[in-house]
């Protein structure tokens, strides 16, 4: 940032310097004209001038106004963001530059370098090289054309300088040339600063990019670490839960049962009462286990009624993926167990994900039906499908989850991919199936 302000300062200096030179030249012309009038050599001056001079007042005001306008347009040119506006402003700058040179009787063309400086300031590299080249050539021609068209109507600087004696004239011309040379030096220095600045900026960007990459890598590593930590924490929690609930209950049960063994013969009634207590403890243990398992469930399932949770999940997914998901629910069992809800939720989630990921489907139709004995879920998409289904992780998990509930899964390709999952509902079916297999 520090470097950039250096370029700005140099730019300001370049403008200030040119303003100073223009003011000095203008003052020189005005004063010389006044002196010529006082010395009564106006006729001779006109003869050598070859053009009608403007009065001092006119020279002063036109030149000052033109330079101020030049500064203003240059400022807006550098500030402008829109390209067309910028081109327009640049054209205006060139025109003002021409007039400024005209007002100064073409005695100072350092203003052209100011225009180039402004052009370079906005130079963005790449394809602009040609624009720059064309602009520079144009400027060169304009400067020369300017000379050509005004040639007959301008009063040369020499004509003014010739008013003074030979020594003074030499000094004046030397000063004028020094002004011009100094301007070129300033301009070149400005360019060097500009180039250096652009280079440094590039370097800075490169360094920033490197840092960014490094930070990204650390973030990735941290993410993995966090995931692992979460897993460990979850494992620890489960262990704790198991220890606190199951362990507590089972220890209690084991201890109770030990006591029962001892008292069974002596006091069967007491044992019976004791066994009732043990059963209660076991039931409480089961409740505790359920409660801790519950904490592992997806948030939606926890928050919303099951059917709404499904809707929410699919809606979210379709919103995020742009896939159209429709539901066709023919029948629904109201007393689904949590583990059944979980499996249905996961199956739907996985199938939709597969439809998008592997089948590139745009539409998915979910049909849920069945009777009191089982629930049938069909997920059909309009994706590419595949001839030979390779069982991936997802499908394998689905199968495993369903098998835990003694359900089945089938899938095949038709006009898209179809997954059909069947879940038995009541205990009879549960055990029935179990005994069948």
């Amino acid at each position, binding site marked *: 940032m520090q470097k950039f302000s250096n370029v700005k300062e140099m730019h300001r200096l370049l403008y200030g310097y040119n303003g100073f030179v223009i003011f000095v030249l203008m003052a020189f012309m005005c004063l010389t004209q006044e002196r010529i009038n006082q010395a009564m050599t106006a006729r001779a001056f006109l003869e050598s001038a070859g053009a009608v*001079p403007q009065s001092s*007042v006119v020279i002063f005001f036109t030149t000052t106004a033109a330079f101020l306008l030049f500064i203003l347009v240059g400022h807006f040119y550098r500030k402008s963001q829109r390209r067309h506006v910028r081109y327009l402003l640049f054209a205006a700058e060139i025109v003002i530059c021409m007039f400024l040179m005209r007002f100064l009787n073409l005695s100072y063309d350092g203003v052209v370098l100011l225009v180039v400086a402004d052009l370079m300031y906005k130079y963005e590299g790449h394809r602009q090289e040609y624009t720059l080249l064309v602009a520079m050539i144009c400027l060169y021609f304009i400067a020369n054309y300017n000379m050509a068209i005004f040639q007959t109507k301008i009063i040369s600087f020499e004509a003014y300088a010739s008013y003074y004696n030979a020594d003074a004239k030499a000094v004046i011309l030397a000063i004028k040339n020094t002004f011009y040379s100094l301007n070129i030096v300033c301009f070149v220095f400005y360019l060097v600063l500009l180039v250096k600045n652009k280079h440094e900026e590039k370097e800075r960007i490169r360094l920033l990019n490197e840092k960014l990459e490094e930070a990204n890598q650390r973030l990735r590593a941290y993410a993995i670490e966090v995931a692992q930590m979460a897993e460990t924490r979850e494992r620890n929690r489960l262990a704790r839960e198991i220890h606190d609930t199951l362990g507590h209950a089972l220890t209690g049960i084991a201890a109770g049962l030990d006591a029962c063994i001892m008292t069974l013969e002596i006091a069967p009634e007491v044992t019976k009462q004791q066994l009732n207590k043990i059963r209660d403890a076991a039931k409480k243990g089961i409740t505790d286990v359920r409660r801790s398992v519950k904490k592992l469930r997806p948030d939606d399932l926890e928050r919303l009624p099951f059917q709404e949770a499904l809707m929410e999940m699919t809606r979210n997914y379709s919103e995020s993926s742009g896939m159209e998901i429709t539901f066709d629910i023919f029948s629904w069992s109201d007393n689904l167990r949590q583990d059944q809800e979980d499996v249905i939720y996961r199956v739907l989630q996985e199938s939709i994900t597969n439809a998008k990921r592997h089948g590139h489907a745009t539409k998915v139709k979910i049909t849920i039906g069945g009777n009191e004995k089982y629930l049938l879920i069909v997920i059909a998409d309009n994706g590419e499908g595949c001839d030979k289904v390779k069982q991936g992780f997802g499908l394998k998990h689905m199968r495993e989850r369903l098998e835990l509930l003694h359900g089945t899964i089938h899938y095949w390709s038709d006009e898209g991919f179809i997954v059909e999952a069947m879940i038995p509902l009541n205990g009879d079916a549960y055990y029935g199936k179990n005994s069948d297999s």
Partner: protein
Amino acid sequence: MRRKILAAIIVAAITFAAIYQAQSQTTLTVGIFAGSNWNVPQGETYAIIDEVRKNFEAENPNVKIKYISGIKKEDYSEWLAEQFLDGSEPDVFFILADDFNMYASIGALMNLESFIAEDKNFSTDVYYPSAFNFGKYENISYALPAESNLTFMFVNKTLLAKEGIALPKNNWTWKDFLEICRKVTRDTDGDGIVNQFGYYDYSWQQAAISNGVKFFRDDGRTSYFADSRMEEAIKFLMELRSLNGNFEVTPKDFDVGRVAFRPFTFAQYRTYKPYPWKIKKYSSFEWDCVKMPAGSSGGNISAMDSLLVAISSRTRNKDLAWALLKKICYDKTTQQLILKKSQALPVRRDVITSVEAQEFFSWDSNETAAIATIDISSAMDKAIMPFKFKNYNSAMLYADTEIHKILTGIIPLNNALNKLQKEINAQLQH
């Protein structure tokens, strides 16, 4: 509602501005020098411009005409240049012949071509071509003539009568001129010194012009000094000079009446012929003017100078300035006033040929004025317009020096004119 009020205010403002503009006065400035352009004394210096001002202001009630009085002719050129440098030059100004080309070339003068073409009340036909073309630079009109001056030959009638020589006619030739000069050039008091001469101040330019020589091409790029008519003129002058022997004629010889001829402008004639100048100068002898003697290949032609008036190219009131310029240079009343008040000739043909003019030219009714028999109008028609291109003065100065050397015999004539032409052409190329 608010908008309507705003609109009403704007309309009112514009109306007031328009009315104010219409009622406000425009001031036109005129650049003019005191005295005559023709180096003769002039009494009522500003009589003509005052009359122009009065008439113009009467015709244009909103216009005021201003001029700065008291600028002498010798200061006028510098004064005008200073005004230009100040940006405060007059809208309409008289311009000296020496300055005209410089101002025209730097673009200080208004191009009059469009005014001339568009103004139905203006015709260039009223002017003599030599006078009108005098206001042209590179074939574009930048100025109009206000008055003209023609060169004639002054004749000392008393001297001729004493020598028993008849007054020359207006169609006289070099031969007549040479003959009379030969007769009158002699030593009258017998002291061995020639004290009566034939001519004074007769220049090689005047001789060449009356022999039909044109010195330069119109664009001033080439000279014609090697013309055979030029050689004739030089030879004639050498012959004339040889009459005087080694004696130089002085202005005093002329003033006291011991010279028969001297070129004389119309302005000088008008100044010195009538009272009061008549008794102050040339009172010891009778004199008159005739046309210049004709060369063997030319005619009774002389050069006609004109005083020009131009408009500044930076004037803010172009049309008014043009109207004022016309008032000075074209208006018949003004031109008639010039006939009466100025020593020079008006530029309008109809004024020159008018009855009043004829009466004016022959005011000296008690003697048979030769000038009254000159057809001034045709003399102006035939007159040669002086050159005034950029290098004219330096070229002419160089030619004058060289020709003087030829005339005085420093350089033999042989091939001198060819050489002169080459050298001048080389100068003109720059």
